[in-house]
């Protein structure tokens, strides 16, 4: 039995060996090729990303407005950011050792890295909290992508971003860069890395339009428009446009990232060069923009309640200027004041967003809708003429007021100490004096639905099609809108029609829309849309609004008289000899509550002391005329028009918030803008014939137009 059992024992051993041999032949002979392939692939290093370069934004003369510059930042390996024990222990992500051993080894390395990152933070002037917050943000974003990919694949998976360095500190100054380099030495995992940063050479004058860019966030990663393109897909740490053209032209501007993958011997497996994104050319003339912005700044600062303002210059029709084509509707300047320094706004974001008065982040030219006041009177007149509600030769009497259902509607001439009426006025004279009674009458005759439709035809309260995220349509109230916004307290009344007829009531438009409407009038009733980007396409088709050119001539005549005839509302402020200017003032009563909240006398807002929000007026109390202090009725100052009046080439609009008087505050600004346009060659100087009986711009036309 002993020998048999010994044989059986040997037999058992042989059986085991046979099983082992069978397994070996499966591994080595059957699956050998697969395993060899796997082994070869395991030699390939994770790919390294090369920085993506975003396209440039240039003006119409290819002046650079935004470009990517190489910059240096501190890049930290993801393993260090997360404290991955394998990485900390061995400098590699592959778990070469057991987890417990890795944990034991990682402890000291972790402390060393934390200290190092602290020191880097000190050299770069960043607090520990800030660094931690950035770190958490990076980790969160990587996890978002990881979750997304895992969901797509159907199981937990790894993504390249987990094995890469991420930029923790951006834009090192040369000094900080040298210090950080000296500190880091050859430390693996934390390096000074070349990245790209956005630079805006023109600074604040085009900051709103050009916009800003910033790191992608969770939403971008989840809804990635480039998801299908490997090179352009958003990855954590990538940048994308946030506002303005940067946002609008993201599809064009985004570059394609480079990718370099090598094996352990340094041989390239994959070498995809980075491709810079496409350039975007704006219709803006950078020099004109800068000059208009400076003029705007000067006039806003000089206004009685300096808050802000905007100015827009639009080219009217296709023409060739100095060898290059300027299309009709192209916006030559789009200034918004106050603005911000686009290269450093992040550092001052808190201050910028706390400035309730100036609101420097607000793109006033397209994003702020103001009551337009009298600048819409030409549109009301055009509508009335086209609808046959007023004859070209008809006159309407202005006694200073127009009786209404419950109270009289006063003309502006009936306020203040010297009350008077305008008397019998024909259409162009009504424009010249900006008579409210005339346009109350027209508004009432037209009725609100008809008037609002005409305003929309002239480009008010509609989408202008710039595509900017900031663009607002403004409000042109029609009965449906009123019913919706008055909480059922009644729809459109005759009073609404009267108010909208003079540009008040609920009407609100943006400066860009105002300039575009002026362009429509200047073209003789042909509506186009404002263009911001030179995209090489032909000019969009312009449409006739359906007003007889003869009637448009009456309107143009009225607007010429506003500036060029004595007692025209802007004659004292905007008359110029270089060119014959046509325009319309607007002093739009604005919400006093807004001022009341912000402009209380002596109250500090944004660190500045404000002038009193009251003024002294004479009132008749118990039959006695006394001077009393009353809360101010604030007005925005508008001036919009076109030049030259006879053969217009540009239209413009400018607004100064709380400028009080359209002529006084905005008129001189408009004059400056026109002079700048002449300098830049957009208007051919053709001296206006001095008006008959001109008394010169020094003469005051009374306390004139409010």
């Amino acid at each position, binding site marked *: 039995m002993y020998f048999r059992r*010994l044989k059986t*024992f040997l037999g058992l051993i042989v059986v085991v060996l046979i099983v082992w041999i069978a397994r070996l032949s499966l*591994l*080595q002979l059957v699956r050998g090729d697969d395993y060899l392939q796997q*082994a070869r692939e395991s030699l390939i290093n994770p790919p390294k990303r090369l920085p993506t370069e975003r396209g440039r934004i240039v003006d119409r003369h290819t002046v650079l407005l935004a470009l990517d510059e190489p910059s240096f930042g501190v890049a930290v390996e993801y393993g260090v950011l997360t404290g991955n024990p394998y990485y900390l222990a061995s400098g590699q992500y592959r778990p070469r050792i*057991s987890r417990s051993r890795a944990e034991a080894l990682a402890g000291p390395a972790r402390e060393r890295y934390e200290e190092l990152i602290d020191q880097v933070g000190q050299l770069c002037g960043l607090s520990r909290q800030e660094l931690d917050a950035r770190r958490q943000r990076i980790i969160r974003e990587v996890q978002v992508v990881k979750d997304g990919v895992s969901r797509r694949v159907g199981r*937990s998976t790894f993504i390249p971003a987990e094995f890469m360095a991420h930029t923790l500190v951006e834009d090192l100054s040369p000094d900080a860069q040298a210090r950080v380099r000296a500190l880091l030495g050859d430390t693996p995992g934390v390096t000074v890395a070349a990245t790209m940063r956005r630079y805006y050479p023109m600074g604040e004058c085009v900051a709103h339009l050009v916009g800003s860019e910033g790191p992608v966030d969770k939403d971008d990663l989840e809804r990635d428009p480039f998801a299908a393109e490997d090179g352009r897909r958003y990855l954590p740490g990538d940048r994308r446009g946030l506002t303005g053209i940067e946002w609008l032209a993201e599809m064009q501007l985004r570059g394609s990232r480079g990718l370099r993958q090598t094996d352990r011997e340094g041989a390239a497996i994959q070498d995809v060069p980075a491709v810079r994104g496409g350039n975007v050319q704006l219709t803006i003339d950078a020099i004109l923009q800068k000059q208009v912005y400076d003029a705007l700044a000067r006039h806003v600062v000089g206004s009685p309640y300096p808050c802000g303002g905007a100015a827009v210059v639009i080219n009217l029709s296709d023409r060739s200027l100095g060898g290059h084509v300027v299309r009709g509707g192209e916006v030559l300047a789009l200034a918004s004041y106050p603005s911000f320094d686009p290269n450093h706004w992040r550092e001052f974001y808190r201050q910028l967003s706390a400035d309730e008065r100036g609101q420097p982040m607000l793109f006033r030219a397209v994003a702020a809708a103001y009551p337009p006041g009298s600048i819409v009177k030409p549109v009301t007149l055009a509508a009335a003429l086209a609808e046959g509600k007023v004859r070209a030769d008809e006159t309407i009497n202005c006694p200073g007021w127009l009786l209404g259902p419950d109270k009289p509607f006063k003309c502006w001439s009936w306020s203040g100490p010297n009350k008077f009426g305008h008397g019998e006025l024909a259409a162009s004279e009504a424009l010249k004096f900006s008579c409210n009674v005339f346009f109350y009458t027209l508004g009432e005759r037209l009725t609100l639905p008809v008037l609002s439709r005409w305003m929309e035809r002239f480009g008010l309260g509609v989408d202008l099609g710039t595509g900017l995220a900031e663009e607002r349509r403004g409000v042109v109230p029609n009965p449906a809108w009123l019913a919706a916004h008055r909480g059922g307290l009644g729809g459109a009344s005759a009073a609404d029609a009267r108010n909208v007829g003079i540009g008040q009531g609920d009407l609100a438009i943006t400066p860009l829309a105002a300039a575009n409407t002026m362009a429509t009038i200047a073209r003789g009733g042909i509506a186009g849309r404002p263009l911001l980007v030179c995209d090489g396409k032909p000019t969009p088709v312009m449409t006739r609004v359906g007003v007889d050119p003869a009637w448009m001539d009456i309107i143009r005549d009225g607007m010429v008289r506003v500036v060029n005839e004595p007692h025209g509302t802007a004659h004292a402020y905007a008359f110029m000899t270089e060119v014959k200017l046509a325009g319309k003032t607007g002093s739009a009563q604005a919400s006093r509550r807004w001022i009341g909240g912000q402009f209380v006398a002596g109250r500090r807002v944004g660190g500045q002391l404000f002038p009193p929000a009251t003024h002294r007026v004479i009132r008749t109390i118990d039959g006695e005329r006394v001077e009393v202090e009353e809360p101010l009725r604030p007005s925005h100052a508008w001036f919009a028009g076109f030049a030259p009046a006879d053969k217009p080439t540009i239209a413009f609009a400018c607004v100064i918030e709380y400028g009080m008087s359209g002529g006084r505050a905005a008129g001189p600004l408009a004059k400056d803008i026109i002079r700048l346009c002449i300098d830049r060659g957009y208007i051919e100087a053709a001296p206006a014939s001095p008006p008959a009986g001109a008394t010169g711009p020094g003469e005051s036309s009374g306390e004139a137009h409010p």
Partner: protein
Amino acid sequence: MIGLLRFLRRVPWAMLAVVVLLCVIGQMSMDEGRGRKQLLWMIVSLVAMGVAALVPYRWLGEWSYVIFVVSLLLLLAVFVLPESVSPNIKGARRWIRLPNLPEVNCQPSEIAKIAYILMLAWYLRYRTSYRSLGGLLLPFALTVIPLALVLKEPDLGTSMLFLPTLFAMLYVAGADVRHLLAIIALGVVLVVAIVFVQIYLPRLVPAAGRFAPLEAHQEVRIRVWLAQGRYSNATEKDEGYQIRQSLMATGSGQLLGQRGRDAIFSRYDLLPEDDTDFIFSLIGHRWGFVGCGVILAAYLVLFVVGIEIAAATPDPFGRLLAVGVTALFAAQMAINTGMAIGLLPVTGMTLPFVSYGGSSLVVNFAALGLLINIRRHRPIVLYRRRFEWNEQLDRLT
């Protein structure tokens, strides 16, 4: 002189030849520094082998209980001694070393393996009690003591050697096969039950998770083994790195092994423990299926010679000792290569005579010395057996 010649004639040269082959292959598979250290250890091992071969083995048997108790005390000492003498390495306390000579450290569990075989062979040699179920109790109890102590260190690999050795010795000694099979069946059922409760039951009944008998890292190892390179989560992927790399290294060796550009695992340090526990994978990578075959064939020669020694020895103690040593080698070989090729879960286990490691080498050579010792004491055959087949005579012996 005559005595030396007689001694040399009785040395099992075939066995020594394959052991030298295994040692050479081991040398070729580790880097120079370690190889040199291993050579030093080999000198020590040869001394140990000589001592084990020359001391009369029956004398070892007479002292076997003492040796066993001493080895148990050494196993206990690992837990009692201060950390300077018994260091905690990677969470395990398996070593005793002199504080001023950290290079020389000894593993009591390695000594315990030999002491255990000596003790068991001495205990079983003239008994028949183990042919009943009740008589198996004491051998099992004697096994559980060192097994539990080694398991506590923890050293799962070494502790797994005791049971196969016990079964082999009991089987050859003549225990009832039904009893042994019943015990094995019980063990298998227990293991399957543990795996079921640990891994599969919580999937069906989430509340069952709290009855999990194993610790998390043990569960992960079993999962990794069950997954065979396909992983469902990151922890398994981390823990499975070792076995995945091992399969990749072995498999990519193909028929003749990889040299030159594709000798990936020789050129880069991609396989952890590739000169100790996973040296077989590296051999498979460098010399392919043929190399693995040579290794397994060499071991087969070793086992055959071991069993031949057991068969030719009339002394029951010598017989059981030879079987025990052979079973020890076989179990070590099977577990080490089995885990390298993914047939068994990963535990720490050296490949005898090939892997780098002083204690294991010395003890394996000492065990080899015991085999030589037994072979040396084989009685001189005065007449050859009849060549005719005599079944009756065969049955009597």
